[in-house]
């Protein structure tokens, strides 16, 4: 077992409530010999140990003390009783962009943020291109922050906060910001931080997110820890507490659709694709994915899919060097970054032909998507061969699309709704 990142020992926090500011002054002037306040206990007797590298989910209703707990861990507040110990540099996303000065440029604000977080100016400047690219705000980085749209502001603030390489990252519902693509980007970055050993404490009402990101979770109720367990268990307890479970109804299984042969398809390059995915790609570059699109049965390019509709994921590849052998694969990820479906040309026994430099290939993956409503991103990769993990090109977030809920009104209870036969046996 590694070292502890966070340790709370019987921590309680009371807020002092004074009738008026004058009462506070009176108490101060009598050096506390007379009490003019009443206490509100936001947290009571909380003990918690989080191992370095763990990701802890904080779950609970509004007012259960989640934010207070984060503030105590961050050191922004001191506990009323008990002891809080944290090892390492803390970065907090309690409120995005707090402390950004609107009069100054994005670059200046990020620079200050990095230095305040304990980096040197040189380190901060070194990371500036990554922060800038991640935020995707282009030349606005050199304009005053007051000229930003709220989306740009949030993206820059988030980008700055997660690129200071904290040992402990505290996130308070901040992920619910930004557009879909940006959310996917954020989850990916959080996974990177996880694998780099960052300890994360994460407040969310989104149980799907908690399940997929966290390694453990606690349920807070009126300032006390009610349960500390694995995320799935906590999510279940929380669900049971907050909502009565709706009885699930099953519908008959649909017949599979017939397929017809695709018409010849022309290779295309999507303008702006390289710029858009610049941050999410790696590989040798000996071949490049130039365009990824989603197409419905009428042949139209779409970015929202009806539940269980058959769609074609079309990937356009261009080779810059001779490639006698290559494998194209993809993976569709949900908004927490979990792979939901995916396969490759090798597994499906549809080998790509040998290609020479300058050749192209367009590959269609046709399948139905019986997935829960939500947003999904597509990662695609062109590999050299199956035995070693080396790639011509690997692109995350190549495409983002929305899945619409079933028109029938059927509720999808899990991430995937596979055909089910139900037999009811009555005695």
């Amino acid at each position, binding site marked *: 077992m590694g070292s502890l990142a966070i340790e709370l020992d019987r921590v309680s926090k009371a807020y002092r409530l004074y009738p008026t500011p004058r009462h506070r002054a009176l108490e101060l002037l009598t050096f506390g010999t007379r009490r003019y306040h009443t206490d509100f206990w936001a947290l009571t007797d909380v003990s918690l140990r989080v191992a370095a590298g763990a990701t802890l989910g904080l779950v609970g209703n509004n007012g259960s003390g989640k934010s207070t707990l984060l503030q105590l861990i961050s050191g922004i507040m001191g506990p009323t009783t008990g002891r809080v110990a944290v090892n390492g540099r803390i970065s907090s996303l309690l409120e995005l962009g707090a*402390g950004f000065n609107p009069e100054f440029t994005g670059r200046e604000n990020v620079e200050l943020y990095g230095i*305040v977080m304990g980096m040197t100016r040189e380190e901060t400047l070194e990371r500036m291109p990554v922060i800038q690219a991640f935020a995707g705000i282009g030349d606005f980085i050199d304009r005053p922050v007051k000229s930003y749209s709220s989306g740009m502001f949030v993206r820059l603030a988030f980008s700055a906060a997660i690129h200071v390489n904290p040992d402990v990252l505290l996130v308070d519902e901040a992920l619910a910001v930004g557009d879909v693509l940006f959310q996917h980007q954020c989850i990916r970055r959080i996974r990177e931080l996880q694998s780099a050993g960052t300890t994360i404490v994460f407040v969310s009402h989104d149980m799907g997110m908690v399940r997929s990101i966290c390694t453990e979770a606690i349920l807070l109720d009126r300032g006390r820890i009610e349960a500390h367990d694995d995320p799935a268990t906590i999510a279940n307890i929380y669900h049971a507490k907050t909502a009565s479970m709706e009885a699930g109804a099953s519908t008959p299984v649909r017949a599979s659709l017939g397929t017809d042969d695709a018409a010849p398809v022309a290779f295309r390059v999507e303008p702006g694709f390289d710029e858009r995915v610049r941050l999410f790609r790696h590989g040798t570059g000996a071949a490049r994915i130039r365009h990824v699109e989603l197409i419905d049965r009428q042949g139209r390019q779409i970015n929202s899919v009806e539940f269980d509709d058959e769609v074609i994921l079309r990937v356009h590849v261009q080779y810059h060097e001779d490639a006698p052998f290559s494998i194209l694969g993809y993976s569709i990820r949900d908004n927490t970054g979990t792979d939901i479906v995916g396969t490759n040309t090798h597994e499906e026994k549809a080998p790509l032909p040998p290609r020479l430099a300058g050749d192209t290939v367009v590959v269609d993956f046709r399948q139905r998507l019986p997935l829960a409503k939500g947003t999904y991103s597509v990662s695609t990769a062109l590999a050299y061969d199956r035995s070693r993990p080396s790639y011509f090109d690997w692109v995350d977030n190549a495409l983002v699309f929305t899945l619409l809920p079933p028109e029938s009104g059927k509720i999808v209870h899990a991430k995937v709704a596979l055909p089910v036969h139900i037999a009811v046996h009555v005695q």
Partner: protein
Amino acid sequence: MATMLAPFRVLVSHRQAIQIFVNRDIRGRYINSALGLWWAVIQPLALLALYTFVFSSVMKIRLSDGASTSEFALYAFCGLLPWIAVADALTRSSSVLLEQTPLIKKVVFPSEILPVHLVLSALLVEIVGLAVFLMVVMISGRLPGWGLLTLPLVMALQFFFMTGIAWFLSALAVYLRDVRQVVGLVLTLWMFLTPIVYPASMVPERYRWVLDINPMTAIVGAYRAALLDDRMPAFFPLALFAGIAFTVFVSGYWVFARSKPTFADLL
């Protein structure tokens, strides 16, 4: 000993952040104004012109029998420069934490650097004023001598003195918002208890002790010694002031650090 060193450690470990904050503050003072940084020069120049007119043409105060009346304008202005810096830094530090609430409540932030940067910013503005003043003095035919070299030391002591009070006031203002109003009043009173716009010699003997226990008297005296009289500042008052400055610096930080964990509750 650790308590004594803690405030110095703050200055060292957060030097880059402090530098950026000072930089911002200086730019913030003059940003969006057409003349920009020239205001730092124009303001003291205009003030000096005003003082010269008032003291040599209206009030006709002389430092000693036989001295010219313009002499006194320089004397008063020389005392006024450090005073303006002190008043500016202390007024602003009594509200700085209240104005930067988001930084304190929502970010892991070393709030102790906020009062420090106000002090440094005020001192930088003072330095520009001093340069202007020195130029006027030289034009009027007086070349500065070796005494000038003591000025950095005096300003360093002044920095520690101001920072200690700034820490104390900024922390106290979180508990008692009335501090802001009180500081304004006290500063006015303090200015008149310091021989700035009158020579110390005009004060009747029996009130002289008020000036003697006032640390600002030592600062103002040291400035005048260095800039106008070209002599070493009197050793005893300056040494005493050094002791006061470091005591204020260390204890001001102690108060700030002690109350810091409760800031987020109270703001």
